[in-house]
């Protein structure tokens, strides 16, 4: 049995890394939930859950802005 050609080993390794990266991005997209984050002076930040009163207000306001912006123009 002959060993695989060196360039094939390299190609295989690169494609394995590419598959790993693609899987990571897929998992990130699936796992990422909507969130609202506020940043205050001096670097403090606070997350507000969608089901809280403040979070719901932020999501409604953000939804209106998304509506104003509309769809991205291609080209």
């Amino acid at each position, binding site marked *: 049995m002959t060993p695989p050609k060196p360039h094939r080993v390299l190609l295989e390794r690169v494609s394995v890394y590419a598959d790993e990266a693609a899987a990571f991005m897929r998992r*990130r*997209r699936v796992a*990422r939930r*909507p*969130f*609202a*984050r*506020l*940043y*205050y*002076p001096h670097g403090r930040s*606070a997350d*507000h859950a969608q089901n809280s009163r*403040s979070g*719901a*207000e*932020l*999501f*409604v*306001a*953000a*939804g*209106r*802005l*998304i509506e*104003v*912006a*509309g*769809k*991205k123009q291609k*080209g």
Partner: protein
Amino acid sequence: MTTVMIQEARARVTVGSFSQMPDAAAATVPSEESAEAALEFLTEMSPDLRGAAILGAGGEVLAGTGGEPERWGEDAAALFAAADGAEGKPVEQVHVATEQGEVFAVRNAGLAAVTVTDRFALASLMLFDMRSTLRQLASPNFTPPERDESRKGDG
């Protein structure tokens, strides 16, 4: 019910939400032409951007994308009102990520910028670009950045 609360908040604090900017005293009033040039530059720098607006200290729209600039003013005021009301303190930056897209809002140098991007935009870069755009726009010797023709049509 939530919409009603938003409407009430908007009426109550539209002006207040913009006058609560932490460094409002440093504000200079840029011309609409300067704001439009700055907005164009911001749009060019951010491939994920769908729409954006730059607002003055009083909440007036200095520049906005799309055909309804006045709506940017109303809806940005509602967003800042909701954000300031969350803890009763003025916020510096807002980031809301939804299934439909992401919304960023920044107050800097007495001005405000609001952008809407595709999902999964790089938040830190977006906020950095918005802050630096506002800072440059507020400086008294602001000159509109030259348009890079070689990047036209990229993306």
